[in-house]
């Protein structure tokens, strides 16, 4: 079975949040609160137990300046170009608006899965990472283990929840709900190999058009988590979108941790031995 995943091309995201809604509807994800967060158009905030797709809205001031009331730099009649909206310094004032639909990365080396003591988190036949809700006992270990802050505990329920990459839909040969609902194909679903090819093509097009800041995030198999099953095309530094710039699966250092613990355990045993040695 080919590894399936998402390619989220943020350069065509229009911030409609259809993915958030479709995900909630299909997966029966409970309400995540009705708060006004004063973060641009983002009142969702972050991924969590009850938010499996999250559209970030980033407003970055543009380099140039223009008197108040002047027409937008890339508005009608101002020499519109499809790439100009994506440029950090397209001239003119106002903000450059970055929108990105975040989701569980379905890491190749998934910390949540590694540290899960019950085996509730498992890797599916599609190479995605899913919680078996009938097994999870709510120990919460996966929550601080995730380098992206994706998985979380649903308090009223006691178990942890996150994106399943619509495991049930995949089994029925259907596209995940968010990708199905996305009106601009910002969220693309398919075999990961194919998505990576498509993404590098898209990156080339954007670079050609002068969008020098465009970069793929999570498409590299040599990164700290072995590449993402759900990767992104971003238009700025990852941290601007609330993403860690160079995440590493915590269990990569686990052999060293066990060695340190063995040393400390031996030190304890040695100290006890010294303490009981007969005195003169």
């Amino acid at each position, binding site marked *: 079975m080919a590894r399936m995943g998402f390619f989220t091309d943020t350069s065509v995201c229009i911030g409609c949040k259809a993915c958030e809604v479709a995900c909630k509807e299909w997966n029966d994800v409970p309400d995540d609160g009705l708060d006004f967060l004063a973060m641009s158009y983002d009142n969702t905030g972050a991924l969590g137990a009850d938010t499996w797709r999250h559209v970030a809205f*980033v407003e970055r001031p543009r380099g140039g300046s223009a008197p108040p009331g002047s027409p937008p730099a890339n508005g009608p009649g101002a020499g519109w170009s499809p790439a100009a909206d994506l440029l950090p310094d397209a001239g003119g004032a106002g903000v450059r608006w970055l929108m990105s639909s975040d989701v569980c990365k379905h890491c190749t080396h998934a910390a949540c899965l590694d540290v899960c*003591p019950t085996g509730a988190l498992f890797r599916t036949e599609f190479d995605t990472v899913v919680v078996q809700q009938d097994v999870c006992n709510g120990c919460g270990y996966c929550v601080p283990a995730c380098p992206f802050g994706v998985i979380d505990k649903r308090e009223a329920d006691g178990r942890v929840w996150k994106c399943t990459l619509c495991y049930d839909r995949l089994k029925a040969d259907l596209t995940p709900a968010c990708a199905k609902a996305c009106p601009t194909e910002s969220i693309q679903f398919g075999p990961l190999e194919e998505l990576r090819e498509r993404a590098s093509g898209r990156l080339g097009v954007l670079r050609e058009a002068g969008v020098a800041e465009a970069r793929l995030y999570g498409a590299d198999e040599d990164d700290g988590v072995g590449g993402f099953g759900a990767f992104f095309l971003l238009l700025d530094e990852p*941290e601007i979108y609330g993403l860690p710039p160079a995440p590493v699966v915590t269990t990569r250092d686990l052999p060293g941790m066990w060695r340190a613990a063995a040393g400390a355990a031996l030190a304890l045993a040695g100290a006890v031995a010294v303490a009981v040695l007969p005195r003169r």
Partner: protein
Amino acid sequence: MTDSYYGRPILKAPVWKWYIPAYFFTGGLAGASSALGLAAQLTGNRRLRRTALGAAAAGVAVSGPLLVIDLGRPGRFLNMLRVAKPTSPMSVGSWLLAAFAPAAIGAAASDVTGRAPRLGRAAAAGAGVLGPAVATYTAVLVADTAIPAWHEAHQQLPFLFAGSSMAGAGGVALASTPAAAAGPARRLAVIGAALEVGASRVMDRRLGELAGPYEEGRAGRLAKAAEACSLSGALLAAVAGRRRPTAIAAGTLLCAGSLLTRFSVFRAGFESAADPAATVGPQRLRRPR
């Protein structure tokens, strides 16, 4: 100033409650006490053996409920033994406890009742051998997360927890054993407190900027209080540990220091997780660009 998404944390805060650092203390106390109990058994110190085995049994008896209560689904606690995963320190710990708890409780029960003395000695030996692992695996448990103040301290935390466990176990044994038999407990308490304070200082230095939570704020205050308790307890144990009232005071201070150390580490993890700069800063430095 590190860029972030509206200053929001990148990582999720742990969902663990106070039961978990309380368990780090009781489990560490039980682990180090059982090692002390075995040492007392091997050297024929029966009074120290009794108090150390008693402390180990009491510590582990409290630990189980603390761990089960913290689960989101306590009824499913046995799922911990559904698989054995070396990549999960919690799985390793569950199996360790599954072997350690019956041994520690059995050894103490045999000692108190006088029944099955041979089995009791074997149980004390088993618990004593597993004890150091029980006392230190919890450091790996917190270090094996994405939280910078925990993960980046993974070389020092096991020694911090080992020292803290020894100080606690030495303190309890010192306070509850007649002075003539309590010499090893006094020495263990002093060595443990020294290791606890030393490891904590080394950890702060190695962490550099990431040490912030251990030095300031609530976790920082807990760390300072822990150090004050541990050092004064050790000093008291060393100079006046042979007198009963001061031995009890020293044991209390050592236990308080040990407990506060675990709460400080626990709290520091929350503060570190909440700070996006702690996550982004070190990652930016190692990113090839």
